[in-house]
Every structure is written in C-alpha cells, then in structure tokens.
C-alpha cells in the first residue's frame, strides 16, 4: 500500500517538476507582456529533441545540453521580436493565435528535420533504481528534482536580490510606471522570452530520459504547464511551482488509482473545479477592476 503510494508520488513529483518549469515560463512571459505563450510546450519539446540530436552527433553531454538550452532561448527571443513585439496591445485572441502559429512552425520544422520517430536520451547518471520503502526511484528523477530546486532558488534570488530581476518585477506590476523610472521594458520582454524558453527547454531535457520525446510531445506538456500556471494563480511564481507539483502528483495518483486511460484528462478536470470555486487559482490575489 505505502510502497504503491510512494511510487505514484515519486513519478508525480518528477513529471510535476517539468510542469512547474513550464508554468514558470508561462508566468514570466505573462508578467512581462500579458501574453499566454501557447508555444511554451514547443520549447520543452525542443530541449529534449535537441539534447538527443546533439548527443547522438557525438558532442559531450555538457556541451550538448548547453546547446539544447541556448538554441530554444534564441528561438524564444525570435518569436518575441518577430511576432509579439509588432502587435503590442492586440486583443487576447489575436495573441493566442500568433503564439499557436509560432508553435506550429517550430513543431513543423522539427518534424521535417528530425522526423516523426520517438527518441530517448541516456540517463545522466545510470539507471540503477534506488529502493525507498519498497518503492523505486530513478536516479534521473533526482536530477529532475535537484535541478528544478536549484532553478527555483536561483530565480527567487534573481527577482528579489538583483536590480535586473526587480526591474522585471516592476514591469509586471505597472509597465508605464516602470518606463517612467527608466526601466527598459523592451529589454524586460526580451529577457522574459529568453528565460522562459530556456526554462521550458531545461525541463524537456531533464525529463526526456524518463518519458522519451518526439516532435509532438510539446502540445500536452505545454497545456498542462498552462494548467499548472493557472492553478497557482496566473502571474504568481511560487504558485506556478506548487501548481506544477500538484498537477503532476494528482495526475500520477489519478492514473494509478482511478484510470490510466483518463490520465491526460485529470489536470483539466482539476482546473475546471478550481476555476469554478476559486476563479483566480489557488494562490491568485484578489482583483479589482478599474472602470
């Protein structure tokens, strides 16, 4: 009983960490620009696929991983410069369609370039499972959780203790006021897309040795990342991380105890219930409307 529960918990937390990184990506871009970036999932896919490609091409692992984070970050910046900046202030639906267009382009290019096969990546430090109270934990899961924890702490430090981070926070509260005190808000937009794409890619790389990857994994991962971001209250960084873990754990529990074929539906049922009863997510603040 306990072993089984622990087993579901481990797999839930592992996947949840990826959702958390994706949700942080949604949050960063949302805060900087009020855009929900539906291409976020494609950065997760890009990270995994590029890591596979570069390691198969014979590059040493650290170099391959660096490239697999750097290239999606550049793609993210390109999306921002070419597609988001020209339409500042457009309607929400227009922005949603633009980012979906971007996600189709990215997915389509990878499909043409690397094909429709499923790829795997070797675990970073072996695949000898660790036994804990009868449940098994893969060493790769520790990598996922460890790196995610480091990233969360680093982001916290960045946003609370550095000038650049505070400039980004200020922009998310009030763009005009931020501009008035001399913050370069277009730099903030640039940084948010780069960081958000890099976070997504990192999540994609870390989880690929466990879940495998292919050109079309980005859709579901991205949508679940969006769910996680909304669960936590859009725009709330800590909420995004907790939301990601919660979505991952509930999904794993639901798949284990209720029905594995409805696994993908669980995050969406969860979000509907949360939105019905707490319209701004679990950790979202109160809103006031300006008339």
């Amino acid at each position, binding site marked *: 009983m306990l072993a089984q529960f622990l087993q579901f918990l481990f797999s839930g937390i592992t996947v949840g960490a990826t959702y958390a990184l994706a949700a942080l990506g949604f949050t960063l871009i*949302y805060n900087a620009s009020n855009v*929900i970036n539906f291409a976020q999932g494609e950065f997760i896919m890009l990270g995994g696929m590029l890591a596979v490609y570069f390691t198969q091409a014979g590059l040493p692992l650290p170099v391959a991983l660096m490239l697999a984070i750097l290239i999606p970050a550049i793609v993210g910046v390109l999306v921002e410069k070419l*597609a988001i900046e*020209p*339409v500042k202030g*457009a*309607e*929400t*639906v*227009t922005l*949603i*369609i*633009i980012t*979906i*267009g*971007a*996600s*189709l*382009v*990215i*997915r*389509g*290019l990878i*499909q*043409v370039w690397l094909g429709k096969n499923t790829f795997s990546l070797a675990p970073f430090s072996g695949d000898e499972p660790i036994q804990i109270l009868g449940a098994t934990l893969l060493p790769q899961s520790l990598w996922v959780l460890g790196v995610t924890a480091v990233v969360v702490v680093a982001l916290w430090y960045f946003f609370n203790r550095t000038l650049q981070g505070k400039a980004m926070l200020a922009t998310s509260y009030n763009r005009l006021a931020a501009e008035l005190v001399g913050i370069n808000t277009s730099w903030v937009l640039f940084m948010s897309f780069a960081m958000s794409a890099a976070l997504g890619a990192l999540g994609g790389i870390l989880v690929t040795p466990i879940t495998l990857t292919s050109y079309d994994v980005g*859709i579901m991962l991205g*949508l679940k990342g*969006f*769910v996680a971001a*909304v669960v936590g209250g*859009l725009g709330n960084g800590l909420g995004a991380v907790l939301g990601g873990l919660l979505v991952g754990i509930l999904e794993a529990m639901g798949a284990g105890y209720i029905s594995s*074929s*409805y696994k*993908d*539906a669980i995050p*969406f*049922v969860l*979000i*509907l219930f949360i*939105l*019905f*009863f707490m*319209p*701004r997510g679990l950790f979202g603040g109160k809103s006031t*409307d300006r*008339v």
Partner: protein
Amino acid sequence: MKKNVYFGLYLVVALLAVLPFVVPNSFYLDLVIRMAINAVIVLGLNLLIGFAGQISLGHAGFLGIGAYASAVLPTHFGWHPLLAMGAGAAATGILAALVARPIFKLKGHYLAMATLGLGIIINIALRNEAQWTGGPDGMPVPAMGLFGFELSNDKQWYWVVALLLSVSVWASLNLIDSPFGRALRALHGSEVASQVVGVDVVRYKVAIFVLSAVFASLMGSVTAHYVGFVSPNFADFFHSIELVTMVVIGGMASVYGSLVGAVLLTALPQALATFEGWETVVFGAILMGCMIFLPKGLVPTLAAKFGKGE
C-alpha cells in the same frame, strides 16, 4: 444602413444559387459544402467571440458531442437521425448551460483555460469510450433520412447546407440588430457600463455561449452525416483553434468576415497539400502573418480601407 446590410445577404444567396452549376467537378462541390458547413459554425462562434468578446478554445468539443450523438444513438440504439441530432443539441445545450455560469465569472485567460479544458475532457472521453465511439479510429455514421427521403448524393447535401447557411446569415444579421445583439455588443465594450444601464451581463453571456454551442452541435451532426464518418480528431484542440482562427482571420464581429474566414481556412489545407511535409510550417506561418499584418481580420481591414462599413 438596413438596405446595405441585406445587400450582402442577397449576394450570398445569389452566389449559393449559382455555385453548383459552375463548380467543375465533385471534388470542388465537396469542398464548397465543407466551406458552407464551417461557415455556419463560425457564424455561431463569431457571435460569442467577436460580438460578445468571450473566448472559447473548446468549441470542437461541442461539435464532437453533436457528431457522436448522430453516430452513436442511431447505430447502437436505433434512434432516428433527426431525433439523435436533437438529443445531441439538447445535451450540448445543457452541458454548456451548466458550465457556463461558473465559467463566465472568469475573464480573458481564465476563460480561455476553462473552455480549453472542457474541450480536451470531451475529446479524451470520446477517445477512451471505445465500446461506444470506436475509440481513436472513429466510427461510421448512418445516412440521414428526411421523411422517407434519404440524403445521399452531394447535390442534395449542397442544397440543404446552402439553405442552412442562408438562414444563418439572415438570423445573425437580425440578431445583431436586436436588443439581444445590442446588449452583447454593449458588454463587449464595457461590462460595467452595460451593467449600469441594466444589462444582466452574466445572463447574456451564458445565453450566447449556449446558443453558439448548440449551433456547433447541430452542425457537428450535419458534418457527421455528410462525411459518413466521425473520429476524435474532429473534436480535438487543434480543430477548436482552426475554428477560432476562421473567426479572427475573417474578422471579429463581422458576419461576412465569418464567411470569408471559413472559406479561406477550409481551402487552405487543400492548397497546402503541395508542400509535402511542410504543411504544418506553412500553416503556422500563414496564421502568424495574418495576425501580425491584419490583426483586425480581412473583412474589417478591407472595409476600412475602401471606406465603407459593413
């Protein structure tokens, strides 16, 4: 103003009357029928998105309910197709009304999330209940009969669909100019202001959501009978996005824009078939290009350019 509005309707009817005699072969007739079906769905969706300003990223789910009602009920339970179609529409209406109240307390991205979630849940259910729906492979749909007369060839289907489209255009034009339509446009402009002048905002939002969902369900049934086959892809997230794109590319809050959007996006995959393997890339690039250069959509942009309103 009024004359100007109906002038477009006469044009549409005239075009629909002439089209079957000028299309070169059955391939194009089929394409025209699918364009007209999509146009009716998009008209309904545009009432919600364009006029009332509410996003739905799950409309294909409602199409799916209608389509599968028309497939499952006659096949497994021997229902008459018309009865099945009505049952699908009723079920969709009830579902939409049940979820609409809590959903429409939400705004913007939260609303997008909720409708998206609803659509995906419907899709996953259709995929998983294989004993009824045939699972991911889909299932055949029995032919549609009307009073002992079976709709079988494309010519007959064309006239049915053309009639549906003409009626929908006429109904949409009238709806927009009715008190109901004015209330919708008011709440799009400013919810608070419309509340102040006595518009029951939530009630109107729920009403238009249910209406456009029922529209979608009915047209889902029509599509299922016309194509003779349904699969879960018909109800997936991507199809929802395609429908929203038709609304936005044609022009939000524009009746004729809905028609243009539906025609263009239905034809696009055919045109892209020549780009073997690159379809997704080109489709995505076209979506982005349209939205960046024509963020208001084709019809309103052109109408503004040539200096006449719709």
